[in-house]
């Protein structure tokens, strides 16, 4: 058996290999289940039921998938230019803080709902972008490693989030009422600031959150930006060879700032959706939003999607479905570690599958020597 480099990569492989990796991952996880004495088929049926088929399951899957789509898109946008922004976590928190403030203030001031929502979107993007521009500017002007700086800022953002509700009487904190005096809690958004969802009437009604629609829109916009515009072309060149980009007269610093800004804005929009679509208040509990690790899982989502924005959305749904199933199925008859094992195996086989896109495995002996001329 020999492994050779492919001279040409057929297009169908780009779809067949991820699909094959997924099938392989389910098969391998099945072996793990069997080895630990579980019935693989029934476990999978439970997962599918919990993720999609039970009443309300799709809604819960989307609740998980929507933030993952945003953080996945944020990572894909930056990683495509080899800017390793792993600060989507913190940028999402800052987006949530900013959007919550906009919703509380403008909703309270009686603005019409569409305007409030629009302002929340803008604020969320601005909050995330501003937070991402800190490592962006450090990278552009001082050549600091953005991996370290963006990662460290995640902790800062998490502490700010907690501080705003737990340690100070800030604008975000509920200060009146009985509950508020017992335990620190955040203000709930006024009704005008709640994001509407489209309801599809299948299986007793599935609520499609506004954020999910926005994520699809952002995915399409990012795909267009990176494949069809001068901006995307420059980002590609810069990602592949910074020297070649400079040689071609591209403005490197501006591009770094712009891409970090876009990446942060997308993550921040995820934070806005978190507040507007789902929690309706700032979830500052260290065991709440901060325990979901959307920012980090988003990197996995982006990697599985090969940094292609269009692929991020379905991958986010898949990972979201698994997480949802893992959350709901935790119990005596379901192995609690299974979902984690499966995620690991999926990631592992998807990355291994990459090898098959670039190389070809030939079974058999070497070709006989060409007849001598």
């Amino acid at each position, binding site marked *: 058996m020999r492994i050779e480099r492919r001279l040409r990569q057929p297009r169908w492989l780009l779809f067949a290999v991820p699909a094959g990796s997924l099938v392989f991952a389910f098969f391998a996880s099945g072996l793990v289940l069997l080895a630990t004495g579980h019935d693989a088929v029934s476990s999978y049926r439970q997962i599918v039921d919990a993720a999609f088929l039970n009443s309300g399951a799709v809604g819960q899957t989307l609740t998980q998938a929507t933030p993952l789509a945003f953080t996945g898109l944020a990572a894909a946008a930056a990683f495509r230019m080899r800017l390793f922004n792993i600060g989507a976590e913190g940028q999402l928190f800052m987006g949530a803080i900013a959007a919550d403030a906009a919703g509380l203030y403008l909703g309270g001031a009686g603005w019409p709902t569409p305007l409030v929502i629009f302002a929340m979107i803008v604020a969320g993007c601005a909050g995330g972008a501003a937070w991402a521009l800190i490592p962006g500017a450090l990278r552009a002007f001082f050549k600091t490693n953005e991996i370290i700086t963006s990662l460290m800022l995640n902790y800062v953002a998490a502490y700010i989030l907690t501080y705003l509700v737990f340690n100070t009487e800030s604008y975000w904190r509920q200060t009146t009422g009985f509950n508020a005096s017992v335990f620190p809690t955040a203000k709930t958004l006024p009704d005008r600031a709640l994001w509407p969802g489209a309801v599809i009437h299948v299986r007793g009604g599935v609520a499609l959150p506004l954020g999910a629609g926005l994520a699809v829109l952002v995915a399409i916009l990012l795909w267009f930006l990176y494949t*069809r515009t001068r901006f995307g*072309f420059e980002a590609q060149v810069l990602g592949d060879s910074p020297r*070649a980009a400079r040689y071609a007269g*591209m403005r490197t610093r501006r591009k770094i700032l712009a891409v970090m800004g876009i990446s942060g804005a997308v993550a921040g929009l995820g934070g806005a959706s978190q507040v507007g679509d789902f929690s309706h208040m700032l979830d500052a509990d260290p065991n709440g939003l901060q325990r979901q690790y959307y920012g980090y899982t988003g990197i996995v989502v982006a990697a599985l999607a090969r940094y292609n924005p269009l692929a991020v959305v379905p991958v986010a749904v898949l990972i979201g479905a698994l997480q949802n199933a893992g959350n709901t199925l935790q119990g005596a008859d379901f192995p609690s570690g299974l979902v984690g094992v499966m995620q690991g195996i999926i990631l592992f086989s998807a990355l291994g599958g990459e090898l098959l896109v670039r190389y*070809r495995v030939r079974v058999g002996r070497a070709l006989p020597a*060409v007849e001598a001329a």
Partner: protein
Amino acid sequence: MRGIVKRFPGVLANDQVDFAAAAGEVHSLLGENGAGKSTLSNILTGLYRPDAGEILLDGRPMQFHSPRDALDARIFMVHQHFRLVETFTVAENVVLGDHRGEGRTFRLRHSAIERRVAELSKRYGLAVDPRAPVWQLSLGEQQRVEILKALYREARILILDEPTAVLTPQEADALFATLREMAAEGRTVVFISHKLHEVKAVADRVTVLRGGRSIATVQAADATPRSLASLMVGRELEGPVVARARAPGDPVLELADVWADGDRGGPALRGASLVVRAGEIVAVAGVAGNGQRELAETVAGMRPATGGTIRIAGRAIRGGDPRAAIAAGVAYVPEDRLGTGVAPSLSIASNLALKGYRDPQASRGPLLRLGRIRERAAELIQRYRIAAPGPSAPARLLSGGNLQKVVLAREFSGKPRLLIAASPTRGLDVGSIETVHAYLRDAAADGVGVLLISEDLDEILTLADRVAVMYEGAIAGETARAEADVEEIGLLMAGGRASHAD
């Protein structure tokens, strides 16, 4: 080596190649690019395993499973692209990967290693500071480090892949002396080249490869450059075309007392002044590391000038801004094709549009016109006869010659006023070199001012209307080609004074 066969997908790189070198000889492996020289040497050094055939060392068959096995047999190779760790010092690079003696100890004893390296470099005339970090060294110096590595490990067989590509004639002569001395000590030197006169100058015997086969092994003394060339190419070559004298036009490039810093921090350009007129080819000769690269980069805007003025077509341009230089009509063929000249993972079409994507032909507002870009790429691929699977294939798949054609096609098609070509034929085969030379001549005939930076004196003498010699960051002298004298130029390159330079 007997009956060596190596195939890659779609290519038969070595087809029943026989090659035998004796102890104490300099044996040259001659052939065009793609003739299979590199594959053969990679097999000999254990990097590839042959699909068929055997390797005999002192009559005993050897099985090399990895480069380490070849190293243990004391077979060492100096690659065309050096295998050095840039952030390490010379001495650290020399012991790197050595698993006997000093390299094996847990704690590196720097002073002992440095002493040994200094000793070797003195004995073989390979001047280099053992403590200097490698990134600070010129290519010629880096090559010496590679040879020192081999000597440090007491190589029995040393293979050098086109070692003179980065050297001046004097440096090459010094290298030849080193190689002859190594052969005299009983080592075997395999010298890979496609430069005929070098092969004549240094080798005892020559094996010619063509199309993956060994064509002939001849005594170097009996061969003429012409006979070797016809063996190598398989047909008779035309003699060098002598450049016609042209009436030069207005100055397109005026450098007045230009200073710029090098990568090491100190000034690398120290008051360089030079004029290039429309329609002429001005060559800059010099020993590697005397500021030629910095000169090219400064004019192209890649490196900020710290003093002096640069005028393009009479207008001063802002230094350190590649876009301003491009807008002023400066085309630049960089020495480092793969690292600077192209974005290797992007498609050929993208690379051809690397500079022109801002033009209305390639984009409308912020949007790219992908159809146009692809059409244009297909057109350029055809016009410049770039051997490529298609416009969407990634540039890194191209061979050196075709990669250079991509860069040239892009730079010429931008309708430049000034074309800077830095070592444009380095590492190319005879056929591609002729093509590149023809392009440069055509450009000059079209009224483009060409600044050719080259370390190959033959190339300079065939192409240039004027020759300027750089030494320590300034122009040491200038002569017209008609009265150019190799000795004189060589003297200027070495820092001597010209008798009739102004």
